[in-house]
């Protein structure tokens, strides 16, 4: 700035006139700020400040959300050997403050689990300020806000944009989804997590975006290494170390059938090209829930229709498609409280204030009662419909190995919101979103796939981050069974036809080595077995025989906890000779093998 002021004789006092002339010249150089249309009445200072405050809040909350997501991982500390391994941050915080999660689990379990009481804060904010959560806080909303800003094609600008930002009947869909999911919750399933925005954000970014970025970074790193240039190699190493310490972990993670999670995320972002914030306006059940509560808001909009010139500037910038323009009633339940309309209005029409007049405001969702009842009934009916498919009461899949500390399957379905926090935090990449293994009702609930990763013996992090208690917060002592029965998630079985010591006269027992229990659930039987030499005998005779000493592994089902370490490390790569199924899991009274297991001692 100083350099652009004109030079003047040294020592002379600067008169106000000189300075004014300099400023005028400066204004001539700088790009002109757009003149306000119409009467050009500037927006109130407080509103302009609040719009900026909102932008900073959005950036800040999105940053915190991503930081929490990156920190949903154990990366080791300098703590002493006996310190319990826990995450220092409340990484599941956004889910705890999510009243849709709170409402679903309240309806399904009739209780509010631990930290979910925080969702009252969000309700409180809504009752005072309207849907500020959507406009100021929600990280998924902010992502859509950004994409709706940078994405529109030439078909999404100007009058097209005005059209797309007018209130549309499709916005009722989210309320019907809300009623359906709440009724489904009352019927026993928290499947609404499939569409909860925080769950979607954690799941899509945690299970698809971050792993994909890690994969790309890995390819780039190998490329840099392959060049053989020392500087590039050490640069790639340093970058790799930094990213492994901050964003992801040292090993590439993979998630079972995660393509669908990623695809839906991309699709819903892409919709911003046609209808800004399609997700927030049309699909978001949390937004709908807050929309229901927004009718009580003490803060809101007042319009002076007489002054409106129909310039539609408010509509150009509207986030919620809540009819801010003159001539129609404002939709308080749809408004994200972004305040863009008042900041844009050049005619002094729109005023946000406490206890506004309600003459030109619609406060309740524009939904038809019969449709609402019908969708709720459909939601409730979904649950028995899903359960008569043979996946829960009968023919329960052996692959549904739930994380340690999980509650019994029916209660699990009442609690699990498929937020994927447990999958993200699992240090061994053992937990995965189920596809159809747990039935259509259990899609994206966590299952353990031992071939990809086993359950680390002393780790209880999945329970720590679970916001709804589907996985309870067990201690190491409970999991390991110090002075009690350990928590079992399944039982290992040998496929002796594929086992090296059992059928190929080859020593191995890596499974026994990795078995973490004490005494070990895998024990070995010493045996001397015949082995045919793999070369032809002399004079075309059959190959000669020899004997080999091997240790043949056995599982003790009374000791096996189903962690899957044996399955993970079995050297028979394609289809392991030892594998875990969920029978014998502590949480079930019926899914048991042994008679003594029926003396059930779980909670």
């Amino acid at each position, binding site marked *: 700035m100083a350099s652009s002021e004109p030079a003047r004789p040294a020592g002379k006092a600067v008169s106000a006139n000189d300075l004014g002339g300099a400023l005028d010249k400066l204004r001539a150089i700088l790009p002109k700020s757009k003149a306000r249309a119409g009467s050009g009445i500037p927006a109130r200072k407080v509103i302009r400040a609040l719009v900026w405050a909102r932008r900073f809040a959005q950036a800040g909350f999105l940053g915190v959300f991503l930081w929490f997501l990156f920190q949903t991982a154990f990366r080791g500390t300098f703590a002493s050997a006996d310190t319990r391994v826990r995450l220092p941050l409340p990484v599941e915080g956004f889910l705890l403050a999510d009243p849709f999660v709170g409402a679903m689990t309240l309806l399904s379990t009739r209780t509010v689990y631990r930290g979910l009481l925080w969702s009252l804060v969000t309700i409180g904010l809504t009752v005072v300020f309207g849907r500020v959560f959507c406009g100021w806080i929600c990280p998924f909303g902010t992502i859509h806000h950004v994409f709706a800003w940078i994405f529109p094609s030439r078909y999404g600008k100007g009058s097209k944009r005005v059209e797309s930002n007018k209130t549309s009947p499709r916005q009722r869909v989210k309320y019907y989804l809300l009623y359906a999911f709440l009724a489904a919750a009352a019927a026993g399933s928290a499947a609404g997590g499939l569409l909860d925005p925080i769950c979607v954000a954690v799941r899509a970014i945690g299970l698809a975006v971050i792993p994909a970025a890690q994969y790309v970074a890995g390819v780039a790193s190998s490329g840099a290494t392959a060049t053989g240039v020392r500087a590039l190699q050490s640069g790639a190493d340093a970058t790799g170390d930094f990213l492994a310490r901050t964003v992801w972990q*040292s090993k590439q993670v993979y998630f079972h059938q995660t393509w669908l999670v990623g695809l839906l995320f991309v699709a819903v972002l892409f919709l911003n090209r046609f209808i800004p914030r399609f997700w927030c306006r049309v699909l978001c059940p949390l937004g709908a829930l807050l929309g229901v509560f927004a009718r009580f808001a003490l803060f809101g909009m007042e319009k002076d229709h007489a002054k409106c010139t129909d310039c539609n500037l408010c509509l150009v910038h509207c986030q919620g498609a809540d009819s801010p323009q003159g001539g129609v009633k404002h939709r308080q339940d749809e408004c994200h409280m972004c305040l863009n309309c008042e900041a844009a209005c050049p005619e002094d029409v729109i005023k946000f204030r406490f206890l506004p007049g309600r003459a030109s405001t619609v406060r309740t969702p524009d939904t038809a009662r019969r449709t609402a009842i019908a969708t709720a009934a459909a939601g409730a009916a979904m649950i028995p419909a899903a359960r008569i498919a043979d996946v829960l009461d009968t023919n329960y899949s052996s692959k549904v190995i739930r994380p340690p500390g999980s509650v019994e399957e029916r209660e699990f379905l009442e609690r699990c919101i498929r937020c994927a926090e447990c999958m993200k935090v699992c240090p061994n990449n053992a937990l995965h979103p189920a596809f159809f293994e747990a039935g259509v009702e259990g899609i994206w609930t966590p299952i353990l796939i031992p071939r990809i990763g086993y359950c*680390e013996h002393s*780790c209880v992090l999945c329970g720590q981050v679970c916001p709804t208690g589907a996985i309870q917060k067990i201690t190491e002592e409970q999991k390991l069974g110090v002075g009690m029965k350990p928590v079992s998630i399944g039982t290992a079985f040998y496929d002796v036809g594929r086992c090296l010591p059992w059928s190929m006269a*080859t*020593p191995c027992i*890596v499974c026994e080595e990795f078995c973490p229990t004490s*005494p070990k659930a895998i024990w070995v039987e010493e045996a001397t077995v015949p082995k045919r030499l793999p070369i032809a005998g002399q004079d075309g005779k059959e190959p000669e025989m020899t004997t080999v000493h091997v240790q043949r592994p056995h599982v003790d089902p009374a000791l096996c906890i189903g962690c899957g370490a044996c399955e993970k490390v079995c*050297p028979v790569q394609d289809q392991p000779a030892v594998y875990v199924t969920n029978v014998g899991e502590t949480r079930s009274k019926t899914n048991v093998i042994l008679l003594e297991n029926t003396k059930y001692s779980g909670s």
Partner: protein
Amino acid sequence: MADTSRRDVLQRIGAAAAVLGGAAVLGRARWDQGHPFGEGTRDRPQTRDFRLKSGPGELPQLAVATKDTDPASLVRKAVEALGGMKRFVSRGDVVVVKPNIGWDRTPIHAANTNPKVVAEVVRLAFDAGAKRVVVTDASCNEPNRCFQRSGIWKAAYDVGGEIVLPAEHRFRTMRLRGEVLDEWLVYTPIVNADKVINVPVAKHHNLAKYTAAMKNWYGTLGGRRNRLHQNIDVSIADLATFMQPTLTIVDAVRVLLRNGPQGGNIADAKDLHTVIATTDQVAADAYGCRLIGRTPEEIPYIKLAHDRGLGTMFWQNLRLAEV
């Protein structure tokens, strides 16, 4: 046709010819005629020999410290008996200390190297003038847990050691050209060093019977290590051929006597208050296996390593210092 000029015709034909020609040149240059499908060349085994070039003179070759209960002073005494750390580490060296950080177990389980032993080795290396001391291992269980709960992360950090956790980008494929180990992923932080000090823990192993020094080189490998058990003895001998450390310091302060290599029951381990220091990794294991009641002849990989000339299984023939 009439309104197509000669220039236009030539331009179009020229463009088509250029595209076809370009494709032909690219195709010929990148033509893959198929790989010869057979065995690669098998030369002499690859080695990383970090041993001192100068002989020990009249100094002991095998030092066993037992007359103390403090792990740090046992280490100090054993290394002192071999001529002190200055003999092994020169000013400005990058020293890699390779403990066993294989399992998510705490020190009392004796499945990993004692953190006090590791810390003392790091301290001695710095005192001898090392520029950097890297402490690392490629763990069996989840590495972050292993490094923290073994106590080695904190202990090594407190004395200035640089702790490197195994990350995928740190493994490179190498041809080891061993008898059973040919092409494997090798953990580069261990082999990129001026001096390597092997700091294993002595313990029972259900398949190999006893393991310490030579078996500790499993931690230099990535990839599917689970196949090594099918021929564990030759695998260990191959690895000991590949990695020949400057110094071996065996932690036998607390020894896992049963249910190795992972243990898990405090009753399986016993305090023996012993540290073995030597430049001969074969002798280290030959001497060490007696601690859990084995003889070197019973343990095939010790015999194999002896036969390959990697060291001697007859530790009695070495100059022994008991301190």
